[in-house]
Every structure is written in C-alpha cells, then in structure tokens.
C-alpha cells in the first residue's frame, strides 16, 4: 500500500466512525461501511443526518474540506448515487492541496 492509499484508508476509518456516531452502532453492524457504501441506498441517510455529518467533518478536518459547498455543486442524481468512497476521495484531494 502506498502512502496515498494508506491515507485514504485512514480517512475511511475516520469517516466511518463519524457516520456511526450519527446513525448508531447497531445499524453499522448490519451495513459495514466501505468505499462502495452508498449514503442513500445502503445507509438510508436522511438529509438532516447529512447536515450532522457535515458538521462533524468540519470539526475533524477544519476549513480545508467544505462539505456543503461540495455537495451543493452536485446534481440530484449524483447525490442519490453518492458513495462513502466519493467523500473519502474528496477529503484526500482537499488535504493534498493544503
């Protein structure tokens, strides 16, 4: 595993933890969080829970990652299809810029 991939698996673990804080440990046990897990179909995250996730990401990663701006630039179909991996990639790319 190269440094970039190691960085992403660390972000995945971290983001997975944040999602678990929002939707509960029980649910995550049923649906393990991977890069392929979709927010809408697999986690059935409600939009108000995405707000909570955004707030937690801001606390964890600071100003470098602007989650609401990233999401607001997407079409509806993209948001419905959004995977945890997309968010991990986005955070990794924001971090590589700083």
């Amino acid at each position, binding site marked *: 595993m190269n440094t970039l991939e190691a960085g992403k698996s660390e972000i995945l673990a971290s983001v997975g933890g944040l999602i678990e804080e929002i*939707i509960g440990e029980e*649910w995550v046990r049923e649906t393990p969080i991977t890069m392929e897990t979709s927010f*809408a*179909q697999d*986690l*059935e*995250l*409600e*939009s*108000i829970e*995405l*707000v*909570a996730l*955004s*707030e937690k990401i801001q606390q964890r990663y600071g100003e470098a990652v*602007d989650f*609401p*701006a990233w*999401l*607001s630039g997407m079409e*509806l179909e993209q*948001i*419905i299809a959004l995977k945890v991996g997309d968010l991990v990639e986005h955070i990794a790319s924001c971090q590589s810029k700083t």
Partner: protein
Amino acid sequence: MPVEDVGGLKTHLQTLGASGPGVVLVHGMLIGSIASWYFSIAPMLALKRRVLMYDLRGHGLTERTPSGYGLRAMAEDLHTLVRRHGGGAPVALVGHSYGAVIALRFALDHPELVTRLVIVEAPLPILTREHVDSVSGLDGEAVVQMMPPWQQHAFLTGGRRARRLGERGIALLRDTTLVDELLAEADFADAELRAFSRPVLLCYGTQTGERMTVTRDRLLQVLPDVRLETIDASHYMTRDAPVPLADAIGRFLDA
C-alpha cells in the same frame, strides 16, 4: 449538533459563512428542514454573508410540541433567534413556502429588525380547507404525495430510515394542532401589506400551483417596494434551481 433553548423550545440550528451581513433562512412545512437550504443555496449565500438556518418547531431535529404552529407563535420563535444572533442589528430574511409566510409575519411585526425580505413561493392564505381536503386521509400515502419528487423517490425506494421522514410528517399532521392552527389563521390584510416599506423580492416558479401564482400577483400589486424573479422551477425551487435562485437572492441582497 447545536441545539439551543428558544423560548423553552429545543431548537436545532446551523450557521454557514464567517463574515458579512446576517441572513436568516426559514424552511417550508412538513418535509422542510435545515437540509432544504444547507445543500442547496446556503453555501452560495455564505460566501459573502453569515447564514443562520434553524429547524422550525416540529421539523427536522427541533422538538415537536403538541401546539404552537400558528404564524404568531412561529414568528415569535424567529424573533427570539434574530435578537439573539443578530446582535441587535437587523437581518435579511429568506423564507420558502410556509417559512416565507412566517418570515413575512415577523417582518410586518418587527420591520426595524429586517433589512430585506425574500419570499420564495409563499401561498396566502397559508392553508385552506380545500388544500387540506386535497391531501386528506392523513396517512402515509397522503404525506408521500405531498413530498417533492426526489423525496418520493427516496421514500418509496428506501427502507426503515427513509420511512422515518414520512412518519415525522404524519406525526405533525396527526399528533399536533398544526393544521387546525393554520386553518384558523386570518389572511394578511392588504392595508398591512401596503404599509410595509422594506424592499421585498418575490421568487416564483414557472411550474408552480395556482395558489402560488394568485399570491404572487397579489403581493406584486400591494407591496410598495417589490420586484419579481421568475425562475424555471416547481414549488421546490431550492432543489430544482439552486443556482438561479441563489444568484437572484444574492443580487437583491447586494443591491
């Protein structure tokens, strides 16, 4: 999650944007929440402004009380938030649908606390018996019918968690006095609207309902300082056309 006590009500609120003039966003009924703004126009408005959003009583993550859904009570919740977060300075208000009517009620009662008002797709009067009857039954099916298409999609294809959204809407209809309180609201008097001197922007969609277009035409006629933006969208404009809507609001707030 920031939750504040607003006149005894546990209220969920969120802010975006670090500096600039204050803007408060007020979402619509039943299926609206902070999320209606947060992933649509709020990030664009927040580039130059401090944006405050909150979940209305009984909506999103704010406490659901048995009553207190009339316009005066809802406007009073908004008043408390504006005083607390505006630091005594007036703010700009943007409301969608029911939220726009709440914002209008507040603006008429406290013009000194309002710089500019944006009304997105407000219906007047706020609720009619005909409208309630058109979605009668107060069951899951009725609430799904009231949802915008993308939420119907999520609801119908989703499982346990997606159903909660519909259940919350049903609970608001079934377990609170929301409908009765809104049916009992008197319509705004034209004289009251004529006396409001602050600049108002109306945003109405090309594919909206008749209740909205009638209200649009009336407000255009009676408000003294008013302009209209017609946007290619349905009633759910924040979802359909966030960029044109944010542009129109931004231009108006900067003018």
